């Protein structure tokens, strides 16, 4: 394993271990996504379109991700650890990649509960929907982690992160809903792959400038 991959693995493993011990983030994400789907189930009139139901799933996913992202750098902020990581001689993008992997894992775990709940409340899942959710997770975690790092340095972090993240999440919702309900979802899935690629590269390349003044 290269030194870079080893650093990323060590940082991602550390995030999973921290969550396993503190249980700060994942239970809140699970509770939120199940509550949101339950409320949508009772709020939506019977006979609603598949588009409306799928749209609500994507709203639940985006806000669940936002909940996780607000906690993404909480452990680093608490004891100033980000300074320690930034001063280490490893490539600073490894910090972003390790954190992005951690965020993606939490999101996937939340969706492992959310998607069956959605199937139970609304309509059966399609492979296109599952593929779209998986692709969206990568994009959301990539750009969301970068923005969470930016917001962590700000005093108004709870306000700043949604302001930065939600506009950038709109294309994910459009691509996700399109891929979930379109008769030919290929172009929407392609769009999500493009979104993932662009924002993953941008975030990877710019993280160093975000964590230093």
């Amino acid at each position, binding site marked *: 394993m290269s*030194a870079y991959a*080893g*650093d990323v693995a*060590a*940082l991602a493993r*550390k995030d999973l*271990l*921290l969550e396993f*011990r*503190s249980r700060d983030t994942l239970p809140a994400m699970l509770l939120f996504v199940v509550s949101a789907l339950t409320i949508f189930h009772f709020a939506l009139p019977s006979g609603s379109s598949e588009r409306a139901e799928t749209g609500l799933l994507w709203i639940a996913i985006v806000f669940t991700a936002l909940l996780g992202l607000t906690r993404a750098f909480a*452990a680093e902020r*608490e*004891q*100033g*650890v980000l*300074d*320690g*990581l*930034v*001063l*280490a*001689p*490893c490539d600073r993008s490894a910090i972003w990649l390790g954190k992005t992997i951690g965020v993606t894992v939490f999101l996937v775990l939340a969706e492992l509960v959310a998607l069956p709940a959605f199937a139970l409340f609304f309509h059966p899942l399609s492979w296109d929907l599952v593929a779209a959710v998986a692709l969206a997770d990568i994009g959301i975690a990539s750009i969301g982690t970068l923005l969470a790092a930016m917001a962590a340095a700000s005093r108004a972090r709870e306000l700043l992160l949604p302001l930065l993240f939600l506009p950038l999440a709109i294309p994910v919702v459009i691509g996700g809903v399109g891929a979930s309900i379109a008769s030919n979802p290929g172009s929407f899935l392609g769009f999500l792959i493009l979104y993932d690629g662009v924002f993953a590269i941008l975030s990877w390349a710019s993280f160093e400038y975000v964590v*230093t*003044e």
Partner: protein
Amino acid sequence: MAPRGRDYTRAVIQARQLSKRFGDKRVLEELDLEVPRGGFVLVTGPNGSGKTTLLRLCAGLFAPTAGELEVEARRGEIGFLAHQPLVYSELTALENLDLYGRLYRLPDRRERAGAMLERFGLWRARNERAGTFSRGMLQRLALSRTFLHDPDLLLLDEPFDGLDAEGSELLHTELAERTAVTALVATHDPEALAARATARLALA
């Protein structure tokens, strides 16, 4: 033999007309400073005089607003002790040092981590989470982290903060053994390190 690409006759820290402002607030104003290799400079001054800011500038965590700052040390060669311990509360003392050892590419990181914890009197607490530590134990852990990778340049912010008599003695011993290190130490108690100091910088 000196490694190529490094001038060992140059000062390790050289600041010319260095200024730092946060919005309208001037924290450092046109500071000139030269710390030679092996120099041990104590930085004193009242609260808000810019001691911490100067250390963070030298660490590369802040960018100067104006002036020039040259630090002849790479990231992995700096040992930075901040007000906060820079460790994860939910990791044990050993896990924290192991993580830093990994990121600093220390080949014998587990042995070094254990040795540093032993040196600062934390060996028995090595498997306890940092979040359960007292202020003094956290400072000892932060010192273990600072010295873990044998830094060439030490940037220490109030190193005796929270330490009891035994902890202070351990720190004195550690610093006494590192005769070649260059250090910039912000302190409210300059007498504690007066014997080691080669110069003092008083910030107003």
